[in-house]
């Protein structure tokens, strides 16, 4: 027995210690430092931070407009703008304060080989874990094209698995027929964990111009509007994960402690916060405290004890 007392919100995620179950989501918080511009915001309030999707070569991303607010949601089509893996590893990672939180790379690519090359580069870096983004809806090749095909998903995971021993988190797309089947295949291919879900594909139209508002015509919908969808997907993926002890970062529209608790109960071990930061940048302590208060009220010592405690109706 480890005599050191584990704090209520602390958890072991694939062998890494998260100080909180809150994970800041890829694409929402740049390369880890951006939100600290805001007074009162601290990376220490997050268990981990997923960096912006990174490809082998720099990418300029999509043309404007890249964003459109919709009822309780946001459509985005950034198009994986990033400075390339070498720049991220050589210029950005050394400037991050790894004593504050855990940093997770988000690996993207247009080809299987690109996923492997980027994973290999991050494997040889101080990054704590690697998220494989096979669910980006805003690029023409790779991304969701791979993620919606269980066979291809598994091939990407297996190929990345072969080049790294760091924890491998597969980010699953909600835009597919059977997310649980896909998860099963990815577990067999060597995925250590899942991020569930990426954005839902969506569109918004300017009726005066009769044109899509988003430059890329379509984009990924995030925010509170997608929470019920995300919750069900987490529940479904958990059914295949629990036997293998594979943790899930539940994500999609979480903006309150109650939202976070729903995901934990549905089967998530950690919970992602993304779009909610755009609304309330200082929301993290509030969600952490809300989870803690709930645990106290229900006599739960460690947040991990909440995972998958859902009891279904008969």
């Amino acid at each position, binding site marked *: 027995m480890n005599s050191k007392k584990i704090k209520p919100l602390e958890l072991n995620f694939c062998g890494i210690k998260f100080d909180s179950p809150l994970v800041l989501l890829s*694409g*929402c*918080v*740049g390369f880890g*430092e*951006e*939100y*600290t*511009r*805001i*007074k*009162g915001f601290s990376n220490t309030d997050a268990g981990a931070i997923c960096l*912006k999707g990174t490809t082998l070569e720099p990418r*300029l*991303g999509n043309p*404007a*407009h*890249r*964003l*459109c*607010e919709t009822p*309780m949601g*946001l459509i*985005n089509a*950034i198009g994986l*703008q990033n400075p390339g893996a070498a720049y991220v590893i050589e210029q950005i990672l050394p*400037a991050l*304060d790894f004593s504050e939180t855990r940093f997770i790379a988000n690996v993207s690519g247009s080809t299987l080989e690109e996923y492997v090359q980027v994973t290999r580069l991050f494997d040889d870096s101080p990054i704590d874990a690697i998220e494989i983004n096979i669910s980006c809806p805003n690029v023409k090749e790779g991304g969701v094209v791979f993620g919606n095909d269980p066979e291809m998903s598994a091939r990407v995971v297996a190929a990345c698995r072969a080049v790294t021993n760091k924890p491998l988190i597969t980010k699953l797309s909600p835009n597919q027929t059977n997310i649980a089947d896909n998860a099963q295949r990815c577990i067999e291919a060597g995925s250590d964990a899942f991020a569930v879900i990426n954005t839902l594909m969506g569109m918004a139209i300017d009726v005066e111009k009769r044109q899509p508002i988003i430059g890329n015509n379509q984009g990924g919908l995030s925010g509170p509007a997608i929470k019920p969808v995300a919750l069900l997907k987490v529940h479904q993926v958990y059914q295949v994960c629990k036997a293998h002890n594979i943790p899930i970062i539940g994500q999609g529209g979480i903006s309150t402690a109650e939202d976070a608790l729903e995901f934990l109960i549905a089967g998530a071990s950690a919970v992602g916060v993304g*779009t909610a*930061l*755009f*609304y309330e*940048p*200082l929301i993290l302590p509030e969600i952490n405290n809300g989870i803690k208060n709930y645990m106290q009220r229900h006599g739960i010592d460690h947040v991990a004890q909440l995972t998958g405690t859902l009891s279904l109706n008969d």
Partner: protein
Amino acid sequence: MLNQRNSIHIEEAEIITHQPFAGKQFYLQVKSPQIATLATPGSFVQLRCAASLPLRRPLSIMKTHPDGGTVDFIYKVVGKGTQLLSQQNTGSTLSLLGPIGQPFTLDPKFSLPLLIGGGVGIPPMVFLSDQLRKQSKHYNPLVIMGSEVPFPFTPAPSQYIVPGLPDGVIAAMPLLEDWGITSRLTTLQGYPGCFEGYVTDLAKTWLDNLTSEQQQKVAIFACGPHPMLAAVNNLAKAYQLPIQISLEEFMACGVGGCAGCTVPIQTPQGLAMKRVCVDGPVFNGHDVVFS
């Protein structure tokens, strides 16, 4: 990057004054002491227009009153956000994030600043004028403002003569007059005392009347609609003048996290997509790629 920490503040700002003008324009003053103290010309705020629309909208700052802790804006209703904002009453609070962004930078080498504001691009030029009047020893600016809806102030005849401008072009912004800053107005709507034409036409007339020695002291600062900025940029190119322009784009986080508000910018390393929020909103006009 660590030195950028804690530079942006969140304030729940009470509406002190909210007053409509013609052309769906509004004057808004809020109590926001931190932003009032820290904002500089060109920086902006993200403002929540209504609870039903949780994403804040970017709004440029027209003036700050650090002593009273207030910030002034003029905005025009252009979409859902500004429509909801226009319905907010005095006494209610708005959630502000700011100040954000790279401001305009002045250089005493360019002692003849030419400020050009079009429509909703007028407010940041007022803020910059406020800074220039405090350094009147170094600068002798001209402010040109254009609008196709009635100006959000009552124009008055200028007490300052600008050599070379057509007769009768005498309308000015009274606030700038009070500050000792020369301004002129342009429109295609025939408003009295205004120059009949584009801001760039009047700017060109003024530039052509300067000696070449004077022209070398001119730096342009501009904010306004995209076509106007492109035209002003071309003017700066033609006269080989430095130019700083303030851009806008749909925005989500406002702190550089989402890369949603990017614009194409030419850099020594090639074309880059720069974030309007934290890399801008003020860019070197010569680097901006206009589509």
